[in-house]
């Protein structure tokens, strides 16, 4: 009998459907959950004092006085970095699948649905394909810069993870200038874009790089000012401090505590979309005019890095907005004293503490994914803006608006008593719920307007 690669035998997942489902479940939930648990187990220990104490108590080894202590600290930091890097890669991959499926349904198509259950493993297949491709470098390119550019972008993507709080205790380090640090470090991505545009020695890539630089530099200003609003409201630049100043319930979030913050939230999200080169601001890689923009000449693994940065940046943008405006990891009904009570005084905290920590991470992850979905949704709704529109939006609308929000927040902090803030919280939450309900009704009406159409989530 001959073995042929026919329609039925190519796909492993069709031959072993159970295996496909298991693999999908593992990649979709097991892998991220494992990373979250690893982060929870490792991140809080990431201080020299704690490491010293652990070595003292369990090994009877005096690490603080040992000549090898820096090797141990560095090894520990590398472990932390390993978890964070893997998390970005997994998120970047999963979000491409989510994006393609969402985009498909929004355009009355299906999207990738063959590898693994519901096509979930297509991102793994894409990554493998990318890695196996040849890494070509144009002959006329600036070889050193061409090779280095993706890593600039990657560093810009990874640096904000240092202060991005995933949970009450799950943060690599809580810098007292966290917001400032994120604003500075995430702008590093554009260095990669500019360098790749320059080094490619191609006019499309150069245009893309220059556009990226112009865009990011303009939008840094409204983004920075809008991010100052929660800083003013919390009175601290530390990310954890800002989250602690908010509460678990929506009316305790900064976005609803003051009308200026409500506006600033939208300004900050718009500006971060532009900084992350997401549609409608994807001018640096506008396919219709610039082929693929700054990464037109890249292939193989370097291209994979650029694409991963692009998608994983959504996590940074969304996570930042959630942290600053939407209450971060705060769990409704649990305050700071609950965390302290469950933590206890021993070297290892009680199991209940870990449960609460996982819950707080879950809050953060759910909110961030919701915002990532909004980004995807925007991308498949809006056309790309022109360069002049992009500039006028920034300088004529966002910058003055952000300044106004800033000043109003200053006055608000000085003049409005806590009771007024609480009332605004309830009022704005009610308003937001009302708007969401109206929106749901409008969406429902859009469906029933067409004869024969109804809500149907089938045909996967």
């Amino acid at each position: 009998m001959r073995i042929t690669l026919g329609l039925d035998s190519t796909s492993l997942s069709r031959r072993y459907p159970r295996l496909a489902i298991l693999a999908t479940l593992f990649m979709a939930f097991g892998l991220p959950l494992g990373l979250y648990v690893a982060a929870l187990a490792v991140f809080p220990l990431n201080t020299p004092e704690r490491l010293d104490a652990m070595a003292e108590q369990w090994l009877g080894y005096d690490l603080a006085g040992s000549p090898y202590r820096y090797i141990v600290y560095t090894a520990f930091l590398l472990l932390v970095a390993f978890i964070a890097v893997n998390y970005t890669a997994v998120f970047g991959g999963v979000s491409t699948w989510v994006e393609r499926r969402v985009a498909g349904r929004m355009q009355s198509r299906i999207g990738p649905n063959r590898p693994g259950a519901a096509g979930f493993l297509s991102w793994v297949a894409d990554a493998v394909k990318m890695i196996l491709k040849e890494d070509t470098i144009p002959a006329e390119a600036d070889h050193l810069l061409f090779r280095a550019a993706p890593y600039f972008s990657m560093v810009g993507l990874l640096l904000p993870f240092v202060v991005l709080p995933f949970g009450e205790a799950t943060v690599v380090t809580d810098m007292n200038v966290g917001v400032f640090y994120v604003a500075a470090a995430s702008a590093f991505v554009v260095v990669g874009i500019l360098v790749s545009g320059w080094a490619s020695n191609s006019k499309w890539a150069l245009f893309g790089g220059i556009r990226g630089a112009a865009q990011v530099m303009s939008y840094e200003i409204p983004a920075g000012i809008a991010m100052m609003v929660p800083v003013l409201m919390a009175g601290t630049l530390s990310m954890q401090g800002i989250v602690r100043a908010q509460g678990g319930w929506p009316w305790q979030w900064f976005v609803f505590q003051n009308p200026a913050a409500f506006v600033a939230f939208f300004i900050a999200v718009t500006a971060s979309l532009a900084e992350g080169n997401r549609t409608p601001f994807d001018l640096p890689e506008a396919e219709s005019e610039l082929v693929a923009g700054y990464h037109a000449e890249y292939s193989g693994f370097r291209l994979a890095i650029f694409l991963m940065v692009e998608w994983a940046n959504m996590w940074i943008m969304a996570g930042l907005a959630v942290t600053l405006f939407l209450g971060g990891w705060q769990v409704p009904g649990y305050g700071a004293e609950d965390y302290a009570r469950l933590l206890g005084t021993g070297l290892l905290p009680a199991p209940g503490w870990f449960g609460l920590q996982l819950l707080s991470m879950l809050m953060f992850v759910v909110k961030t994914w919701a915002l990532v979905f909004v980004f995807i949704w925007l991308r498949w709704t809006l056309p790309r803006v022109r360069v002049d529109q992009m500039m006028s939006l920034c300088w004529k609308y966002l910058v003055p608006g952000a300044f106004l929000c800033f000043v109003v927040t200053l006055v608000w902090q000085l003049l409005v008593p806590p009771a007024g803030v609480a009332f605004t919280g309830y009022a704005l939450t009610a308003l937001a719920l009302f708007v969401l309900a109206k929106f749901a009704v409008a969406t429902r009406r859009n469906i029933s307007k067409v004869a024969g159409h109804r809500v149907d989530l089938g045909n996967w």
Partner: protein
Amino acid sequence: MAQGIRAYFGHITDVVTTFWEGLSVTLSYMLRRPITVQYPDRVEKRVADTLPPRYRGILEVDTAVCTGCMACERACPIGVIKISTDKDPGNPKQRVITQFDIDVGKCMFCGLCVEPCPTGAIAHTREFEATRKHVDSLVFRWVPDPAKPVPFYRPVKGQDAPRAPVGEILRRCLAAASWIERPSFLPEERKP
């Protein structure tokens, strides 16, 4: 000045209202059923069975009612059909068809061969899936074995030829041809 201010705030209102419209439209499409038909393996019915009855798919010949008139062979503008006839060695009065080949790989599904057929022996089915690894395998042999020729059919006056339902013979042949085993009614595959 006042006009400028109105234009400025008009733009902001435009943004809000158009976002409202656009986002609700795309979200509403996300909640509808994609119209994509997941051919070939996730369809409720075989696609061939959902096609209109006069669809011009792969040709089928019911040799039991073929009169051997060769009208179809003459009608084909590109020589797709190849018919050979002979005398029956056992019965010199009876003529037989020893070969009836249709090269589906060449056929353009124009239907010109179907028109002149006096008995409806040659007809279009609604089948269209017959991919083969080699193009030669697309020559469908309706008389599989020249040693076992098929006698001519003699039409009976005032009576329709008892033709098998269109599509049934072909479907049976195609079903017998799995992807791995070659069907018996196709010629030997050339070694690539």
